[in-house]
Each structure stands twice: as C-alpha cells, then as structure tokens.
C-alpha cells in the first residue's frame, strides 16, 4: 500500500494501481467517458484529468499509476474548467435533440453537462452530419451522437474478439464505422449489443420493434402471445428503480396481461425442452461417436461468430434451436392446433435480454410453413418502455401465474439466464438420461460464477465428461484455438456471447455495473435452491408435450420443429 495526498487528505492506494481506481475507492468521484474496468486505459476522453504536483499539464487519472507521496487535486479550478471545456466541445458537435433521444435522462454526456453546470453554448460551428445505420436487425448506429470514446470499439475487439467496428478517418472527420463503412448488417457484427451497453450516449441502441408489437396488440383479429426469457424477470425491476436482483416474474406476467397479451408463456419451459433435446443429442453423440465436443446453440451471437470465424466448428454446434425459437415453433404448431387457432393469426412476441435474438428470429431457417417462429423480439429495455408508455404502475400489480401449456418451467430452465446455467441443467438431465438416476447434489458449483472460462470434469455413469463453460467470445476464441491445436479432453462446451451470460446481455437495463450482474445471478440461484422442480426432465408440462405431440426427444417431430442447421459466412476481417 502507498499513501497519496488527494485534496489535502491522505488516502491509501494499492501499489501500481491507476489513480482513478484509488480515487473511486475513497469516494472521490472523477468523471470519465472512456474508462472500462478490466481493460488497459485508452486515455481518450480526458475527462478524468487531475492536477498532480510537479506535472506540467493535467494528468488523466485513469492512466496514471499511483506513486507514494504524490499530491493530487481532483477538482482544482483548472481541472474543472478543462472538464467543462471538453463537455462543451462535445456539445458543440452534438445534435441538440435530447428530448427526442432514446437515451434522454440515461445519457452520460447529458449527465455530465448538468453536473458541470454547462449553461451556454460557448463554442459553436458546423456539426458533423452522418447517415444513420439502420441496416441491422438488432442495432441502430447514429454516428451524429457518437463522441468517439471508443468503448464500443474496444468491447467489440478486446472482449468479444469480433472487431466489426473501428475508427475511420482522421481528425474531426473521424467516426466509428464498419469495414468499408458498409451497413452493420453485412459486417461481421454478431449483434450481441455489448456496444450498446457501453455507449455513453444515444449513438448505439437496439433496433426497436415496439411499434409492430403495439400494432399487433391493437389488432382484434390477432392472438398475441408473449414469452419471456429466464433472465428478464430478475432485471426488469431495475428499470423501475427497484434494487438489482429483485425477481418480479409474477408482477411482470400481470403487466403482460394489462398490456393486452392473450397468452403469457415462460421461455424457461422452452429451456427445459432444449435440455431434453440437447441432452439427448449429447448422449447420442457420445454413444454413437458423433462430433465432439458438442457446443451449445442457445446464444445467437455465438452462433454467428462460429459461422463467421470458426466455420470448421459448425458441426460441433448442437443442432437444437435456441429456447426462444423452440418456444416459437411449438406455439405456432402444438399450441395453435390445441387451441384451434390458425397459426397465421398468431403474433408471437418474445422478451429477451438480448439484441442478437432479434437477428435470430429473422433467420430464414427459423420459420415453418412460411411462418416465422417468432414475429417480434423486444429487449428488457423496450418492455419497460412499453410498460411506462401504457401507464402501468408496476408497484401496484399483484403477481399472477403464466398460462398453460407453456407457462411451467423447472429451475434448471431458469438458471439458463446465467453463464453456466445451461451446462448445469444439461448435466442434471444427462445424468438422468444415462443412468436413470438423479445427481446426488444438483448444485454444480464449478460452473457457476462470473469467470470467463470455467472447466470441470464430471463422472456420469461409467463416463468421465470434460465440460467447459465460456462467456465472452474472446474467451471462446481461446478455447476454440486450443481445440484446433489438438485439445481433446472436452465433451461439452457451453458458450454464452455476453460476459456473465444473459443476465448481462445486450438488451438489459443500461448503466448497470458488475455488482448488479452479481445480484441478478444470485437471485437465479436462489430460485433454483428454493423451488421443488429442479430438473428439466421432471417438468410435467414438458413430459406432457412429448406424450401428446412430440413423441420422444430427438424424434422425428422434434427434428422437424426444434432443430436447425447453420451456414458458413464470409466476412471481411
């Protein structure tokens, strides 16, 4: 530990850490627009500049290691004026349309302008005007609002290993764009939306399908069905100021009914269904010498990543559709037949923590008899917007239960929302499928937590299986490269595109931190601990579906409705 003097007060800092980290720990708030925890500082925004004794200019605290005895002034007039100037400069090239902006009141630029007391347009001049990129089914880019902090670029490159976007041009003409400045839809973008999560302004946002959903709800001839992903019920509350980690599944169901949805289903049911299919597939591959390791296919960003960058692993991907698409498929088949509704009259909506799900729903493979399995995908954020728009007071609603036949789920299906959840659920059921017996302890601690790569070996009957759980695609790259290099001890790999899994997905509430993600994860595992039905194969609704309609896992009907295929995609790297 070293001691430094900040604003005439002595504080303790860890040797070698950056000044900004030490300041934050001591409760001294220095603003920043470009700092990203865990990544090497880029020093681009200059908002965190402070005055350090003996230094000529101002020093960015994010990129300056602490030194014993250093004397720092964080809010000297010079430093504050510099920060204010930076914000004023950004505003001089920013469209003044806060009232129309999707990030109004959630914008860091707006927040800092307010904090620093910007009250006049000190610097004026021409503003850059660019075309909005609305080509992607998942993400909208509005370069006019971009302040070039570079967080999206670093997220895409350093965390996700995709590098779909980078800086283009020089000086004040610099923008963030794709290769050859083409639309995002033809770039290598995997639609994960992590760029949206780190964007401080409204330059990046989800492609919204709110209007389509509202129109469908207003159409009396349509049966509007909604499904909600396992992680949504533990994050939605944050949009309404309730503390992170609160599960409001019942209240959310009530809200869906108030919004006018005709049926409310839980994607957790489809997650159980996925486990039945995927577990069977895994067992089959192991027994029949199929392609191993098998890799999960729930996360559509990951799927596109493999198709683009690791096409030699396409056969390793499970052929199962994701839970969203399985649910979509059974809604427009079993449910429609069962209820005597023309599938063409069903409008199927899914609420997802994810922007890539919007892309997934539009994949041509994800349709049956010319009808898309899922018609519109909304993120957690869009759902919250819709609830607010319709004047629904979340606090006054009482919890309600979901509808049959797809409203019932096991907790195995619920923990899909966290990285490691699919693996844990799959191992529970695979053990049962192979041995006919339940695991002694259903809790598999090794696959839980926020680590990017988690590995374990587990004995199932006479077999010893190697399992890996990966989240964040740069981590996936590492594991895939090992396998390419000849690693053979792995049988099953779960990959989630977003670091931490769906609870930290690109469609979740903005401005959340790692603590919030931890709280969400904790809640999912608390639900798993406390509820009675903890394995997918013991979900009665799933059992009934197989009995009445699908036959057996991996059977003909299942293959027709619940399985798919993937294709190699060419990308400009």
């Amino acid at each position, binding site marked *: 530990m070293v001691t430094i003097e900040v604003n005439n007060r002595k504080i303790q800092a860890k040797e070698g850490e950056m000044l900004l980290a030490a300041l934050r720990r001591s409760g001294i708030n220095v603003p920043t627009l470009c700092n990203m925890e865990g990544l090497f500082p880029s020093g681009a925004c200059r908002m965190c500049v402070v005055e350090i004794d003996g230094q000529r200019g101002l020093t*960015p605290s994010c990129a300056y290691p602490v030194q014993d005895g250093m004397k720092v002034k964080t809010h000297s007039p010079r430093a504050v004026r510099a920060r204010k100037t930076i914000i004023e400069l950004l505003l001089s090239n920013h469209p003044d349309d806060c009232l129309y902006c999707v990030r109004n009141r959630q914008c860091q630029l707006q927040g800092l302008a307010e904090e620093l007391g910007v009250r006049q347009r*000190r610097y004026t001049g021409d503003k850059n005007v660019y075309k909005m990129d609305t080509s992607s089914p998942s993400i909208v880019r509005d370069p006019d609002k971009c302040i070039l902090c570079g967080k999206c670029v670093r997220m895409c490159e350093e965390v996700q290993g995709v590098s779909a976007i980078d800086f283009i041009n020089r*000086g*004040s003409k610099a923008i963030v764009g794709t290769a050859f400045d083409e639309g995002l839809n033809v770039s290598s973008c995997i639609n994960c939306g992590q760029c949206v999560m780190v964007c401080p302004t409204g330059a990046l946002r989800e492609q919204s399908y709110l209007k389509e959903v509202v129109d469908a709800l207003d159409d009396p001839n349509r049966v509007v069905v909604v499904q909600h992903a396992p992680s949504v019920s533990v994050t939605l509350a944050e949009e309404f100021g309730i503390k992170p980690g609160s599960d409001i599944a019942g209240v959310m169901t009530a809200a869906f009914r108030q919004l006018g949805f005709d049926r409310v289903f839980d994607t957790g049911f489809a997650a159980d269904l996925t486990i039945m299919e995927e577990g069977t597939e895994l067992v089959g591959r192991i027994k029949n010498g199929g392609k191993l390791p098998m890799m999960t296919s729930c996360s559509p960003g990951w799927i596109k990543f493999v198709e683009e960058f690791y096409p030699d692993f396409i056969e390793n991907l499970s052929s199962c559709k994701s839970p969203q698409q399985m649910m979509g498929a059974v809604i427009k088949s079993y449910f429609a037949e069962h209820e005597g509704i023309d599938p063409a009259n069903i409008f199927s909506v899914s609420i997802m923590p994810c922007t890539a799900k919007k892309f997934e729903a539009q994949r041509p493979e994800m349709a049956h008899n010319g009808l898309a399995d899922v018609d519109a995908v909304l993120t957690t954020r869009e759902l919250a917007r819709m609830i607010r728009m319709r004047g629904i007071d979340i606090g006054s609603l009482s919890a309600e239960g979901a509808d049959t036949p797809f409203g019932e789920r096991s907790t195995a299906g619920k923990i899909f929302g966290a990285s490691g959840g699919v693996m844990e659920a799959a191992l529970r059921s695979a053990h049962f499928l192979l041995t006919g017996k339940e695991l002694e302890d259903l809790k598999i601690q090794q696959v839980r937590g926020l680590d990017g790569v988690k590995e374990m070996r587990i004995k199932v009957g006479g077999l010893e299986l190697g399992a890996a759980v990966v989240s964040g695609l740069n981590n996936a790259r590492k594991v895939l490269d090992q396998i390419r290099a000849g690693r053979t001890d792995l049988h099953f790999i779960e990959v989630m595109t977003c670091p931490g899994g769906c609870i930290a997905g690109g469609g979740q509430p903005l401005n959340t931190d790692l603590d919030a993600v931890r709280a969400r994860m904790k809640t999912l595992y608390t639900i798993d601990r406390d509820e009675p039905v903890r394995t997918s194969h013991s979900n009665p609704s799933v059992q009934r579906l197989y009995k009445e309609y699908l036959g057996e896992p991996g059977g003909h009907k299942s293959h027709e409705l619940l399985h798919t295929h993937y294709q190699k995609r060419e990308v400009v790297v």
Partner: protein
Amino acid sequence: MAKLLDEKCCDRCWHSPGKPCPDLVACLAGVKSCHDSPECIEARQQEISMLRRDDVRRPTVFVGAGTCGLGAGAGKTLKTLRAYLAEKAIEADIVEVGCIGLCAAEPLVDIQMPGKPRVSFQKIKQDKIVQLMDEMLDGRVPQDMVLGQFRSDKLTAWDGVPMVDEHPFFAPQTRWVLANCGLIDPGSIDEYIARGGYRAFADSIRSTTPKDLCDVVEQSGLRGRGGGGFPTGRKWKFALNTPSDQKYLICNADEGDPGAFMDRAVIEGDPHRLLEGMAIAAYAMGASKAYVYIRAEYPLAIERLKQAIAQAKEYGLLGHNILDSGFSLEIIIKMGAGAFVCGEETALINSIEGKRGMPRPRPPFPAVQGLFGKPTIINNVETLSNLPPLISNGAEWFSAVGTANSKGTKVFALSGKVDRTGLVEVAMGTPIRQIVMDIGGGIPGGKKFKAVQIGGPSGGCIPTQHLDTEIDYESLKQVGAIMGSGGLVVMDEGTCMVDVAKFFMDFIQRESCGKCIPCREGTRRMLDILKRITRSRRNEAGLGALERFQGVMYLTRLAESIKDTSLCGLGQTAPSPVLSTLRWFRDEYEAHIFDRRCPSGVCKDLLHYRIDTVKCKGCTLCAKKCPADAIMGAPKSPHYIVPDKCISCGNCEEVCRFHAVVKE
C-alpha cells in the same frame, strides 16, 4: 558495386561477400592491416583515395539527383548530359549524388576534371548542359553558372573561381550530419567507408561495452533532434537497464511538418550514415531488431535505404554476428501511410504493430514497454546520424560545439520568404538572424522581415525583436517557440500572421488522429474561430457577428485547455501557432477583429476596393469584368464600387489601365 569487398590485394586477404573479414572496416580505412607489405598498403591507400575522389582519372560529373534536384529538373539535365557524352563519345563518369542543401540553386551539377578540384554549378537545367560541358571540357569555367570550387590540398585550384566553403550559404555552417550529403554517391558503401564510415561502429562493437557507449553519448550532451530534446544517452539507458529477451530500436523518419525535409535529404544523400548510427544505438541499448519508420511518400529515400541495407548486409555490417563480435542486428523498413500523428512515438509504435496510428497513454514509456510490449527506443534520423562522428571523435569533441545545454549542431530546412532556401546545418548557439540573413541571404524583393516560424505546427513564431535568439532548446522555449525537428519558415511583411495561424490550425485539425476530445474537437473549433475572424461581414448571417466575438473571447481559454488536457504531443502543442502569433502580433488580430481589415492584404474576404475618381477615366472595362455587377458608373465618367456587392475578387484592379482601383 561492392568493389572493395570483391578486391583482394594479396593472398592474405580472405574476405568475400557473405564471409567478410572482421577487420574489414579497419583495414579498408587503413587503420589496421594484416597486409604488411608496402605494396599492399600502397594499393589500399590508392584505392581509398580514388573512392574519395581526391583526384579523378577522367571527367566526372556529379548531378544533384535528390528529390529536390529532380523536382527542379535534374532528371532532364541527366538525360541531356548522357546524350551529350554519348554523341561526342566522351569518356566520363556520371555520379548521381544527394542534395548538398542549396535547394534554391537546383539543379546543381558539379564537374571534376583530372588534376583539378571539383567545381559546383547552379541552376543547370537541361538547356545549359551543352554550354557548360563544352566550356569545361575546353578547360574553362563558365562564370555565369559557377557556384564555387571545392578546396583541395593537392590539386591546383581554378583561377578566379571562389571557394564553395567561402560562399555565404556554406561559410557559417558546421556540417556534421550533412558532411557527405551532395558529395558522395549514396548508392556506394565503399565511398562511405572511404570517408571514414562504419569505423565508429566497428570499433564500438569490438571494444566498447554498451554501457560505456551510453555514457559517452550522455556526456556528449546529445539531445533528441526530433523536437523533444530529451538526452539521448539517458533515454538509451532506460532500455539498457530494463531486462528483456527482446528490445527494439526505431528510427523515426516519419517527417511530417509542412516544409521540413531534413530526414529525407540525409537518407537520400548519405543513407549509410543513418544505418551506422542505428547500428551504434542498437548495440548501446541492446536491440537486435530495428525499424526505420519512413513515410511512403519518400520513394527515393526508401530505395536508397533498401540498397544501403543490402550493401551493409553483404559487407557483414548488418545481420548475424556482425564482424565476429557476437552482436546481431536486423533492420526492417516500415512504410508509413502519411499520417502526421505517426511521428508521435506511441502512435508510431501502434502503426508498426499494424494498428491504427493513435497514441497510447504514457506511462508505460516505450523505453520500458514499447513495440510489441518490449523495451523500445525511438530516435530521430538526425539524432542517429550524429552518432558516427560523435563516437569517432568522442564526447568532448562533440560538446565543444554549442551552448551550455544544447550541444553539437542542428539541421534546418530553411524555406519561405528567403533568398536562399535549402537545408542548413549550424552549430547550436547560432543566432537565428545569421541563419535567415547570412545563410539564407535575407528577404527577397527588398521586403521587410516579419517573423520566422520554427518547429512547424507545434512550434511558434519569432518576431524581429527576438531575431538574435540563439538556436538552443531553452532559449527558443523562452520566446514561445520550440526547437522542433527543423522546419524554419521565413515570413516577410506580406505575410498575415492570422492567416499563418489559420494555416497551421487547419493542418493540425486535419491531422489530429481523432482519439482524444480536446484535440479532435478543440482544434476544429479554434479553426472555426480563426475563420470567422478572417471572414467579411458580407458572409455573416444571423448570429454570425455574435459568434465571432464570442469566439475571440474564448480563443485563449480553449487553447489553454487543449494544451493542458490533450493525450499526445500533437494536441498539447496544437495551439502553439495561435498562442505564439497572438503573443507577438496581437495588433494584427485586433485589426482583423475590430477594423475587419487585414494589414498584410492577405485575407481576401477583408480586402476593400475603391475607385479613385480622379484617376478613373470611365472606360467601363472594370464594370464589364466585375463578376458581381458591383461597379456602377456611366461611360466617360468616374465609376464607383458598391461595397455590399463587391466580393473582393480583385478583377477590377487587375484590368484597370489607369491604376484607379485602390485596394485597402
């Protein structure tokens, strides 16, 4: 090519291409010899003398064929010369040399006749070749073309021809880095060796420790010539003392200042000097790999460098286990795509790594964690080119020249409103007045001197009252300028200082990498403010006038913030041209702002035209030529200009035969 290496003077000589003798350089330079027979030594000395061209056996014509010479027409001169020699079947040698520095006099052609010293001729375009050659072959020196003859101890000087070293352009110079430029064939390693080249390096790697080398350089007081002025020896020691399996040396040849061409001239004219300097530096800091980061817009320099590297490898002066010393060095050329910011060392490192050329925050400093995460030293071309003479002659010799804190010499690219533009090398401590007035020959056309801009877009201007400031890192700082890499632009009374500031601001805002906000957005707004100051009322709409005054009020505040907060040197010094012109030429700014007038008559928007009714004969020509229909008047009676309509194009002034149009 590779003459010295191929030739064996006796049986004891065993060197050959690919298997050079460790004592090669010492032997070639006549210092150490295993050839003890007098004939052998005699032969060797003769050969060296021939390479030094102490005398020539047949007429030898040297053509300045650097980029500047070629631009002035040296290519055509060469062609005509070859045709002339072929036609007359004259046996003569043609040597393409680099730039000697006197760019204003290009194309330069030197001729050396057997038994006579070399004579230099100026402005030899192709049409002059025949006359020049005719006279010289006839034994006469054409006086109208001559620049001067080179001093020689052994040869009889030409009568009535001045000495080059007494020429006002050359006399005040101290040419260390440029010693060989324009004199030797840059494509010949032999000529470089014959003039003492590679001795310092060969001696160092076989008899000096890296630490001792660092000490010598530190004691010499050599400071970075790229502009920063950091003590070179001390910088090396950071890398030397950082343990690592791999270290890198990078030569920064990404010369980007407008009007600067020092590095280009050195590489084009004397590439081996740079290679030797790099080899010495690499050995001293412990690097086995070195990069030359050079802009792709320097094709000739790159070509010369490639050729030089190939030759040095052949001679065993680069590559594995150089001269049996155990030291190995590989030099790689990396071409930059012409981004000014890539001259900044961390941006340069990014660029070599294949990333976008954007600076990184420091610390970590490159000397500790640089290229590919390894200790890296980045030195400028001129810094490295100083090393061969420095190591040969020692720290004391080097530090004997210069001022208290700035030692040695500095190369400048002298340009702008000065009689003799070109490349000059002067001892530190030389007053700027001497460079401009003596070496440069003062301001052409009898105009008055106004200022020199030193240090390019990062530097500042020095006005008349400080013209006696000495070339010295610290004294330049005191007057708000910097040493910079060597750009020296002279401005006369016809230069508008607001316009100058605007030019540099425009350059900087276009060349900013766009990474950090103050530099990206701030320089652009500063340019906006300057543009508004130089704009006429006509082009001001709405709140224009208010914005114009508001901009002026916040100009310095903005400049200070950019200086204070920018990420790299480019941004931190970006406001310098504005702050410096504002400091010395505030009155000019005020004239623009309050009187809406450009005292130097440069800012077109602020020019006003009026017709002198006494002189005007009413010929109507001006009214006919006016593109804005701003001139009124009946034929044969005085005309007048409607100020609101006038677009200040100046057509009327040009066409008026009676000088009746007055510009003010």
